């Protein structure tokens, strides 16, 4: 399958790979998986005054899954969490020109950012 240039760029130079301290009160962690293929994705955000100041990911999966999570971490930095929550997989798929068989990778990235925000909110509630 031919990957788009943007997928290859994110795959070869992934942005924001790494981990944040998941015990930090300001850090939300989302871990999601794609059962059909076994891909797993961890996406973490650090939030200050409802704004995402840092985002990191680790994705064990195909190039499209890595590119989708890399792109999302780039997008969400500087966003308010309410905005980040609105990111749709279709925007990710469009930006990366994902073919139909790889749409589930963008779904995974959307699920991951939503899970990270939900985790952060849970923590704040205490």
């Amino acid at each position, binding site marked *: 399958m031919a990957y788009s240039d943007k997928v290859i760029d994110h795959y070869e130079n992934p942005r924001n790979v790494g981990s944040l301290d998941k015990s930090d009160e300001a850090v939300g962690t989302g871990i999601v*998986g794609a059962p*059909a293929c076994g891909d797993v994705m961890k996406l973490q955000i650090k939030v200050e005054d409802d704004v995402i100041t840092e985002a990191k990911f680790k994705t*064990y999966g195909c190039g499209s899954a890595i590119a989708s999570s890399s792109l999302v971490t780039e997008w969400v930095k500087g966003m308010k969490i309410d905005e980040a929550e609105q990111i749709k997989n279709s925007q990710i798929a469009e930006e990366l020109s994902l073919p139909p068989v790889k749409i589930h990778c963008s779904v995974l990235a959307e699920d991951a950012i939503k899970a990270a925000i939900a985790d952060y909110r849970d923590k704040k509630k205490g």
Partner: protein
Amino acid sequence: MAAENPSPSEALPPFDPDLDHFARLGLRPGYAVDRDAVEAAYLERSKVVHPDRFATAGSGTRRAALEHSSALNEAYRVVRDRVLRAEYLVKLGGTDLDSSDPEGGAPKPEQAFLIDMIERRDAIDEGGVDLDDLRDSVEDELEAALASAVAGLDAGDHASAAAALVRRRYLDRFLAEIDDAIG
């Protein structure tokens, strides 16, 4: 008694695309299969529908022979494989593990399992993990997941069989990465 040169169109049963893989081989659906019986059924049926027998028949019959043969090959590939057979039985039960659809697709595993899948990989990245030991352990876990799926299938519990097979897919993927790391 068949004539020496049976009419091909008479000898070839009509092709039914909706037959499941077990029925295609004349077997009852179920996890426990006799491997010799599967092979015998496959060979016997292959002979009957083999396209070579219909090389001089009309185009409709030739195409039907091809459809029969390829469906039979697929049935044999799935039914004789212990993992594919289990996954297929779950599919017959209404869960397609190849789909991510929340309705009828692969069920999501427990969050703790996913966290474990990430943390074990993190541990490899951080170094100090004996990859050969890890490989042995993941292979054992793969076997255990399949055994659990088979137990679920035997008990008619498709949900637990599907959940175990999903865990197996994640572990299978993890094993492939460990093999890459071992080189």
